[in-house]
Structures are given as C-alpha cells and as structure tokens.
C-alpha cells in the first residue's frame, strides 16, 4: 500500500515536496502540544490547490488517512500525523490573493499567517480582528480549523465571525465554495460547520476574511487586586456598566511574577491578580470608557491602577500578558496549557478549586485568563522526563476540564479537542450527542479518512463501524 501510495504521490508532486525519511519528518511529528507525537507514511507539501486536490483523490482512492497541517502552532495535537496516513502540509499555499479595500475583504490561501493579513491590510486602514497569541506564525487555515480566538474575542468575535467565504476540498477531492461574499448563503450554513471542525470535514484551500477599520486609538488600564475574588468582581462590574472592552484579561500571582521577571512590564509583583482592560474606538469614546473603568476599579478596591500613556507603554503592558506562556515556561522544564471556558461569575470558585488541585497533585499552576469571555488558560508546571509527573499533569488537566463543564462551561474555548481532549468529550456530551457528531462526520467523509482519531470520538456503535481499522484509536507516545 505505502509503495503504491508513494508511487502515485511522486507522479503529481515534485520530489522535494514529499518527505519520506523519518529523520526529515521529525519537525512534523507534533504540533505545539508536544506530548503527542507520531510519524506519517509521508509528509507532503503541495504547491498548488490542484496538487492538494490530486493528493486527496489519491488518498481517497487508496483509503489512506489525511491529516492537514498549517503552521503547527495548534495546542491540542490536532495536527499530529497518523502513522498509516499522510501529513498534508499547506504551508506552501501562502499567498494573499487579493485585498478589496472598499468591500473590506481579503482573499488568502490557507498557509498565510494570521498577522500578515493585518500587515497587508494596514495601508488601507484595515486589519483582521482575531489575534491568537501565536498570530505571528499561525496560519489562517489552522485558524479556521480550530475557530481560533485571541484576546479581542469579546468585542470582535472568533474566526467564525470574521470570515465570509471559503473554498474547500472534500475527502473525495471535490471542490466546494462555502459562504458567499454576502453575509449568508442559500442552503445549510456549512461554513459554520466547517469552522472549528479540526480538519475532519474537508480541506480549506482559500479563505475570504472580513477586514475591520483599525480603531483610532486603543488604551489599556492595568489594575492590581489583593484577591482573586476582588478581580473577578471587577470583571463583572465592567460588563454591568455597559462597557464591552476590546480585551479583558486576568493573570494570577505566579503568572504575574513570571511575566514580570521575563519582560519587566511594570506589573505589581505583590498583587494576587491583575486585570488588563483594553478599550478601543474613537478618541472620545476611549477617553470616556477609560475614565469609567478607572473609577470602577478604584471603587472595587484596586491596589494599583496604571493607564497606558502611549503606544509604547501599551505594548509593554501587553507584552507581559502575551509572553506569559514562555515566561511561565521558564519556571519548570515543561508546562501544560488548559483551555476550559466557564461562566464569568464562576471565576473565583474555579480558580480556588484549581489552587486546591494544585496542592493535591503537588504541581504548581499559573493562571492566565481571557476574563472577558470566560476562557481559562491554567498552565500546569511539570517535568516531562518524569513519567509520574506526566501522569499527574494529565490528571490535573482532566480535573480542570471536568470542573469547567460542571460549572456550566465547556472543555475547550479556542484550542480544540484534537487527540488531547478526545476522551473528555463524554464529560460534556451524552452518547446521543456524540453519535450526532459522528453522523455529521459520515455525511462529509464516509470513509473516515480525514484526521481520524481526533476531534470527535468514533463510537463504533453498529455493525458497519466494527470493521473500522484501528486508526481511530491513538496511543500517545
């Protein structure tokens, strides 16, 4: 099989676009969640949409699994290769095809990086709003696959809210355009279904994104609090005042101290929590809202309040937050980043539970939190060379996800399920709901060849599934 596959691939791709040697495949063995690794039969890097289509048709014909990969910055092992399949790397499809300043859209290939869209649109006074922390590197195709967010989601939405249309190829290699250049489409909204589907329903070959006018000004208010609950109350108070900040982030003490050591952003090292509350818009509106937020924070017992003086100062205040992951990463050999989302009102209870679990598992935890939209990122510190610590970190992470679901939240706000959270899906969904996901998967990919073993558990609940190959069960190494 693999001989035939490689022979067929060589007929449609240049030799340098196929990587067969295990040593050369190593850079592709995992995404940014390095706990899960595997090597594929081949890594292929097509240079055109036509080549992607040919590869899909070959794999469809030979019944070979296909795992799509963009920049590999994902955090759920969604792009981990499949040992019996090919890894379809879309990074060579990296052209911005068109920017329409009047209609405020950009048409791009899937391998284009998130940030480069905003950079290209900047000369028109426009930008692409979703800004995941990995935006320098992550690709728009991957953003669609994971429905990526960022620190500005509360006001500007996720990827699904900021794309108009996309071209996809089905598992059989059929071309399909989803969405439209209008604001809806005539039949079922397949674009909504594809966004966040983790490469299980089709392969994105082109995306048309919406661009927004760059705000006149943005200003950030940083406030320190002497307790998690005071900071949590302050988050609620901003929303209750009728203000939707562009970003509203919380960090707890360990995260504050790590970030401060890392980049000297001027964070209050003695605070139990800080909030970073960014307002953007017209100059007048920002001035009005900054005043209101400063007053609110002061009334609610903030121990320190800093308002960004200029763009450089604003960038510095954000630098601490944006580099929180690598900063915390210096505190231990490894960290494990979780992604549960909870109702905002539960933040004090949930963080205190996380501290209790941290003591139970004797593993430190630093918390970075998109407080505005309830998306937690606890960073569990551990040493991956110690099997006991790995098991404890996974159990700790699992407990956090269960906790998130129990308080009315969900398993993952923006990182996706991938391999990592597959077993946890049954804590959020009942068997009938998982079966409905499976039926959707079957509708698009009857051969179950696209990214098998990820995203949704395959239940093998009737005869036809019993014959499935073992490809739907992954064994993390």
């Amino acid at each position, binding site marked *: 099989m693999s001989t035939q596959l490689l022979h067929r691939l060589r007929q449609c791709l240049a030799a340098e676009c196929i990587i067969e040697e295990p040593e050369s495949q190593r850079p592709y063995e995992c995404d940014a969640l390095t706990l899960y690794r595997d090597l594929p039969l081949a890594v292929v890097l097509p240079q055109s949409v036509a080549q992607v289509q040919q590869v899909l048709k070959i794999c469809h014909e030979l019944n070979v699994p296909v795992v799509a990969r963009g920049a590999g910055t994902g955090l759920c092992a969604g792009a981990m290769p499949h040992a019996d399949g090919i890894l379809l790397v879309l990074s060579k499809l990296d052209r911005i095809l068109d920017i329409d300043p009047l209609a405020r859209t950009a048409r791009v290939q899937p391998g284009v990086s998130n940030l480069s869209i905003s950079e290209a649109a900047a000369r028109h006074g426009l930008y692409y709003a979703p800004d995941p922390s990995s935006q320098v590197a992550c690709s728009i195709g991957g953003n669609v696959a994971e429905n990526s967010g960022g620190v500005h989601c509360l006001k500007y*939405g996720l990827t699904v809210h900021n794309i108009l249309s996309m071209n996809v190829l089905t598992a059989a290699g059929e071309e399909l355009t989803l969405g439209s250049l209008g*604001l809806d489409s005539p*039949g079922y909204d397949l674009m909504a279904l594809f966004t966040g589907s983790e490469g299980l329903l089709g392969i994105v070959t082109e995306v048309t994104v919406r661009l927004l006018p760059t705000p006149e000004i943005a200003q950030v208010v940083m406030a320190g609090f002497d307790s998690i609950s005071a900071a949590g109350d302050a988050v609620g108070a901003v929303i209750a005042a009728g203000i939707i900040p562009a970003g509203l982030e919380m960090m707890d003490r360990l995260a504050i101290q790590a970030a401060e050591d890392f980049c000297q952003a001027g964070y209050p090292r003695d605070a139990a929590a800080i909030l970073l509350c960014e307002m953007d818009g017209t100059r*007048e509106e920002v001035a009005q809202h900054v005043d209101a937020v400063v007053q609110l924070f002061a009334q609610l017992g903030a121990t320190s309040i800093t308002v960004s003086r200029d763009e450089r100062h604003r960038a510095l205040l954000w630098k601490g937050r944006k580099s929180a992951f690598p900063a915390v990463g210096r505190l231990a050999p490894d960290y494990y980043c979780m992604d549960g989302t909870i109702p905002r009102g539960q933040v004090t209870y949930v963080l205190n539970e996380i501290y209790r679990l941290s003591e139970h598992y004797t593993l430190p935890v630093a918390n970075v939190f998109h407080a505005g939209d309830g998306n937690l990122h606890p960073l569990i510190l551990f040493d991956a060379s110690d099997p006991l610590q790995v098991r404890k970190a996974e159990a700790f992470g699992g407990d956090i996800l269960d906790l998130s679901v129990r308080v009315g939240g969900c398993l993952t706000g923006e990182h996706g399920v991938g391999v990592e959270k597959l077993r946890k899906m049954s804590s959020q969904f009942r068997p009938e709901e998982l079966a409905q996901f499976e039926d959707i998967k079957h509708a698009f990919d009857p051969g179950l060849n696209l990214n098998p073993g990820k995203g949704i558990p395959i239940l093998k609940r009737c005869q036809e599934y019993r014959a499935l190959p073992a490809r739907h069960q992954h064994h993390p190494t």
Partner: protein
Amino acid sequence: MSDRGSMIQHERIDGDHSEAIIATLRDARERKSPVYISAGGSKQHMIGRHCDAAELDVSAHRGIVDYQPGELVITARAGTPLTELVATLSEHNQMLSFEPPLFAGRATLGGTLACNLSGPARPWSGSIRDLVLGVQLINGKCERLNFGGKVMKNVAGYDVSRLQAGALGTLGVLSEVSLKVLPRPQEMITLRYAMTADEAIVTMNRRAGEPKPLSGAFWLDGQLHLRLSGAASAVDSTVRQWGGERVDDGEQLWEALRAMTLPFFAGDAPLWRFSVQSSARHAPEFGPTLIDWGGAQRWVRGEQQREQLDRIAAAAGGHAMLFRGGERSGEVRAPLNAVERNLQLRLKHAFDPDGILNPGRLYRWL
C-alpha cells in the same frame, strides 16, 4: 389558523412542553407522517417553500429559562416571543444586538434562529447565527440533544448551534436557545444624505471602512441614511465630522425598516432579497430597490425573471431568494450544484433520516 391539514394541538400553558413535542414526533415518525413546525406563524408565508405537512405547533413551549445580565447570556425556550426577550433585556439595559424583526409580537426565538433573521445592525453587530451560543434541539430521531453552551467560546465538537441558523427547522425542532446579548448603546443619531444608489453604495462602504460607531446604512428613494450608535462622545464627534441632515424621528425609521413596515414592503407583490457583496454595483433593471446592510442586502419587488436574478446575484458574489409572496410551491432559493446538493442531503439525513421535519421547506428535494 392553518390550512395545513390536521393540526396537532398542545395545551396552551407556558412552560416546558418538550416531552409533548417529543411524543408527537415519535408518533409522526412511526406513522411516517411529516410535520410542519410552527409557533407564532409570523413567517409561515415567507422565506421557505410551502410545506405540506401536519402542523406541529410549539408555541406553548415558551419562557425564559435563564438570564444572567453579567454573563451577557439569555436562554429561552424556542416558542418564546421575541418581544418578551426584548422587554426582559431592556430592564437591564441590554438588547438583542442583531435587531430581529418582531413581526408585531408574533416572531419567536426559535423561528428567528431557524430563519436566520437579523435587522439593520447585522453587518456591525452580527446576525443571530453569530450570536447563538448553544441550542437544545430534538432531531428527527426524536432525541433531545444539547450543543454549544452558555459561554462565549466553545469549540468542542461541531458547531451544530450555528448550523440551525437558516436551516428552517429541517434538522431538528429547536427546543431551547442561548444567545449572547449586549448592552444598549448610550446614544443613537441618524444622518440623511440625498444621493443616487450608485453613490450610496460607495459612500456606505467607505463610511464602513472608517473607525466610527456606524450601526446602520440603508438607501431608499434617493436618500441614504446612516445610523451612529455607541458612547455619546463618539457619536457626537462623528456627527460633527460627517455632517449631513440630522433625522429627528430616526429611531422610528430604523424600527420600520427592521419590522419591514416601510411602505416599500407593503402589498402582495413578490418580495425578492439579494444577499451580495456590499460594494456590488446597483442593478437598476429590477426596478425600485431598497439597499440595506451597508450594501449587502438589497430588496426588489414584483414579477422578476428568476434566472436573471440568480445570474446578477452570483456575479455580485451572492445569491437571491423569493422572500415573500409569489409562487412558493417551486424553489424560492438559489439553485445549488450537484456536489452541494449531495452534501446538503447527506447532512439532512444525518439529523432526520426519515425526512419528517419540514420536508421541502428549504428546497423541494431536501
């Protein structure tokens, strides 16, 4: 109330009637007798095709289940009239930011999601499709299923909630819906400018490209109307910069546009809707046109050549539909190609294998 064969009645008591709905669906499935889902009946003769099936009236399945103003989330049963949601949200100075038509109090939450109906603010505040966070639905296998949730971000599993927007109830009977809600703007001002349709389309798009609190842009009868809403300071300073004639009864004007009660919408002549790229050129051949959504939604009236509408809409990056009136036994939406039809059918089958939910409402073959 209905001319749709036998009617399935539910006791008219507000509350959770989902068990009764499931029981009715089970019976329908066993008898292989499809149902037409209804509640307020406001959209019975618009948006979808005529559906010849026994009516399943879910209007009694109503009531707000949960509302946490601090979470910006409201959850209600699908039969809840939108007016009830609007009134409750107003008490906390919040709103349905997608400005759905309320159709004189008859529009319900479930129907509005099923039809994906949004008002003038849609290009700036999103559609109900953008704001839905979670749904409970009963699929064609009579299973009660929950997808999404009551939190702002949720990427576990496929986004089945958003898929319901515009599906016209063909994938499931909506039972409960959770929506993101937003604070009401502090101030709202309407500006008016005399100009042609072509000029208006360019102006709408240029203005939308400026970082100002624009929240509505429509053109009718030689007049462009721009609405600014948000913080008073931002609205006032933009009014000074943009100029134009200030409209005193602006709020009523936008309300009439949202409710489709402007004289343009009156009468029985077929009402056609274009959903196209906002900057697409004006097509004068279809007669008087109302241009809304900053150019992305355009309305025309009267008898039209279907093929011509489809061709012009496709060239403008979008699609056309027979929104209201006209011949509703034929197709009312843009044709799909073979690959699209196949996937839509397979998806329908994944939710409703026996085809008992609103058959033919979306497309004749679906």
